[in-house]
């Protein structure tokens, strides 16, 4: 599937395209077996700011195992003002997460078995639970919570359908066919 020269393979089996843009890699954790395609951008430099004297929070973006980040998608930690201090906050992706081409993800938490389509916008601090499918071109509002086993569509994204109990296997299969 992938050309040997285009991808760099890490010890834990992650394949990262040489054409991707990974900023602040010291603040990014990849769980293993994750594929990052060309022009993908991951903003690990936007990490949490802590008051002086405390240890700096090390992780900005944590990605689970078997994730697939398609061409030109973007992972960007969310930011807000909390107790008078403006800061970026860490972002966590579960296992078996697929992010489609050109999607922009600023979620706080994404569960496992989540399939995000092409050109989606996942708003700041949104929480997506396990087994969710997000159709192409969906815009999820900031701070929203998407329950498990739902299919989301539209602008703004709303739950249009409930997924069957076999959703985890189904979404995993879809990911393997990409």
């Amino acid at each position: 599937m992938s050309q040997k020269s285009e991808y760099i393979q890490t010890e834990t089996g992650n394949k990262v395209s040489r054409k991707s843009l990974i900023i602040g890699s010291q603040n990014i954790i990849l769980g293993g077996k994750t594929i990052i395609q060309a022009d993908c951008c991951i903003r690990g430099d936007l990490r949490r700011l802590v008051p002086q004297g405390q240890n700096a929070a090390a992780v900005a973006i944590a990605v689970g195992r078997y994730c697939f980040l398609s061409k030109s998608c973007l992972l960007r930690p969310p930011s807000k003002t909390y107790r008078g201090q403006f800061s970026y906050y860490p972002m966590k992706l579960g296992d078996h997460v697929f992010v489609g081409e050109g999607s922009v993800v600023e979620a706080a938490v994404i569960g496992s078995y989540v399939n995000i389509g092409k050109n989606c916008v996942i708003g700041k601090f949104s929480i997506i639970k396990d087994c969710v499918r997000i159709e192409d071109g969906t815009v999820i509002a900031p701070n929203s919570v998407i329950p498990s086993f739902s299919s989301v569509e539209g602008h703004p994204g709303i739950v249009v359908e409930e997924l069957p109990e076999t959703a985890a296997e189904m979404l995993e299969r879809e990911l393997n066919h990409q």
Partner: protein
Amino acid sequence: MGPKRSGASSASSAPLPPLSIDPTAVLSDAISFSGTYPVTIGANSVLHPRCKLNSTEGPIVIGSNCIISERTQLIAPDIDGLVLGNYVHVEVNCHIQAARIGDATSIEVGTKLGKGSCIGDNCTLSPLSTIRDVDVLPAFTVVYGENQRRVDASATAVARNETMLAHIDCLKKLIPNKSEKYTR
């Protein structure tokens, strides 16, 4: 405004346009400048990596306290150029060919502004919205959903600008400033 220097932009080896960058502005690595008309960047503004400024058709002026995010393209539509006001926040993946963007306007992810469009002060454009060519948006307009519009009556403009300043302070701590790279 420094002399042109080739090879400063990682994207191309073409000479940079004449730049006038305020010393308090923060320009990150790998910003691509193209064109020959001058580009002005105001005080305290932050440009994320991989944003593109194209001044082939006219000059670009960015006001003070602006944030331009990565992968956003600012393209001057004509000889009158593209003017961004103060406190403008442009999010990721935007394609902007507007003539003017007013003060304290938020342009969210993936917005497309048509050639020569004019956006008023204190407007909010929700993600993936599209503004047609030469369209004019009055002040305090909110564009949402499938290109629906309403008037923002929340009177939160002052609070928003304070948040913008806090956001810029935060980015200044996180993003290394490479502006001298472009001005040498």
